């Protein structure tokens, strides 16, 4: 009897936390389908008018477009850095290898405000302020550590003899990489790219510091509305972001076993 009460409490706790983790998002998306301009949850009337307004307002569409450009660049930067680093650490031993590997993951643990402010001072000096590149650079600081982790898992699990066989049959290292290794790790490369996309499209603080009127990303446009005059248009913008994120996440889940990844990332 005592045991089953404990079990029920345990499951109730689990349920409570699942609610805590999902309800805010669910509510945000629900709001976007309601007709009321105020903070009232829709009950029986549903409308798409906020989405129509979103997709017909130049400002919001420009924001979406800027977001997509920045996340595209982020994917490129994160993949270049992440792939090269993951390959380097699986193939070679370095004197300061362990330290450097830890260092390569530190940016993801650095709060956005610190990264944003320090890059702002540099962007101002180098004339990069006001461009897409510096925002993408900031976002890739959070994205490439994840790409490294994802690719390291997949490269470590790779059968080394395959590439050796290719080399033995006369392939150059580069040929062996592009014809044998790359196709085998392609799912993980794609997952890395998808993570980079999700991080970049949703990131707000760095975009706030480093963006300007010309490079405003979607979260940066949502922010003042959220702070000063809450309208369901924000919810529609949130809905669009959520939809993009979930679609990409489903794609990622199809490509690799997420659970396996979590269990690997022990240290």
């Amino acid at each position, binding site marked *: 009897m005592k045991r089953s009460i404990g079990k029920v409490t345990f499951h109730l706790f689990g349920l409570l936390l699942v609610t805590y*983790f999902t309800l805010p998002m669910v509510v*945000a998306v629900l709001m976007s389908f309601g007709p009321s301009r105020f903070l009232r949850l829709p009950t029986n009337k549903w409308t798409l008018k906020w989405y129509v307004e979103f997709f017909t307002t130049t400002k919001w569409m420009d924001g979406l477009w800027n977001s997509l450009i920045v996340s595209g660049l982020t994917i490129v930067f994160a993949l270049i*850095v992440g792939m090269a680093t993951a390959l380097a650490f699986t193939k070679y031993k370095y004197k300061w290898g362990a330290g450097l590997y830890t260092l390569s993951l530190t940016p993801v643990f650095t709060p956005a405000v*610190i990264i944003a402010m320090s890059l702002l001072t540099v962007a101002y000096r180098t004339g990069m302020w006001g461009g897409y590149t510096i925002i993408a650079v900031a976002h890739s600081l959070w994205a490439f550590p994840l790409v490294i982790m994802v690719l390291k898992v997949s490269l470590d699990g790779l059968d080394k003899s395959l590439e050796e066989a290719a080399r033995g049959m006369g392939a150059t290292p580069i040929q062996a990489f592009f014809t044998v290794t790359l196709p085998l790790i392609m799912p993980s490369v794609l997952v890395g790219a998808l993570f980079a996309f999700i991080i970049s499209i949703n990131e707000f603080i760095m975009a706030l510091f480093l963006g300007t009127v010309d490079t405003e990303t979607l979260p940066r446009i949502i922010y003042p509305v959220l702070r000063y005059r809450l309208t369901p248009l924000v919810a529609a913008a949130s809905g669009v972001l959520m939809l993009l994120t979930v679609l990409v996440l489903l794609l990622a889940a199809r490509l690799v076993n997420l659970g396996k990844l979590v269990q690997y990332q022990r240290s």
Partner: protein
Amino acid sequence: MSISILSERLSRYNKFFLLSPLLFFLIFFFAGPLLWLFRVSLYQSRGSSGFGIGGADGKEGGGFYVEGTWTLENYFKFFQDEYFRDIMFFTVELAFIVTMVTMLVSYPMAYYIYKAGAKLKTFLLIIVILPKLSNMLVLVYGLQILLANNGWINKALVGLGIIDEPVKLVYTLFSVVVSKVLLIAPYTILVITAALHGLDRTLRDAAMGLGASGTRAFLTITFPLSLPGSYVALLITIVWALGAFVSPLLLGNPDLQTLAVEVPKQTFENVNWAMGSAIAFIILGLMFVVVLVFNLIIGSAIKWRTA
């Protein structure tokens, strides 16, 4: 020169060539900017005070800070001004509350996931990752609505008879903590879950085989062994909590502001980049100090236990 020597040379070249993108990013976009941030914090600021509009007279460069100066006045101003000191104390206070709540939420949840069957586990993992991958502004918006006076939470509490009339939940310490925990907990839960999965299951089975109850096996075997992994999660939580920005800004009130909020305020509203940089650097310093203190405490605790 034979081909093999050439290939070996190429390979050695390759060994460092592959690291160059990482080093480029770490040096020019991470470590370098942090050093430059420190430099900017040592410029003389233009504004006459930390409040109101600073003297943004020149357009290019002139308005942000005074070129060519070296001074510690921003740091002096920070530590002498009660306004900044209060914010700093609140930042640390909030970080401790958030850290405690995050760990109290994360550990049981991680254990729940660890115990769950394969299918439920995948589902729970996805649910847990979701807030981390979605936009934090979306979460804040959802919480603003949920916690409002006529929101679901208040309605449920009134309906259940726990309270008589709606309580103010939004724009309070409660809403700040709830949102910040939601932003950090996905990560800590994953780390602790991974730590639990990394444990040798046979140890627990052995304890139970020797007659220990489930609770006892957990308290004497599983829990102590999962502490190192949980400690990593704890440190990350503190670091992130000290950098809290969105939660206090959008779900707090003027009395509940953190240093991170003060950074863009000084930088953009007061056009005082030197002060903004100084505060960002002070946050960084706080993180180091707190992590160091924790390491010392934990280190001596381990010594005391094993002695």
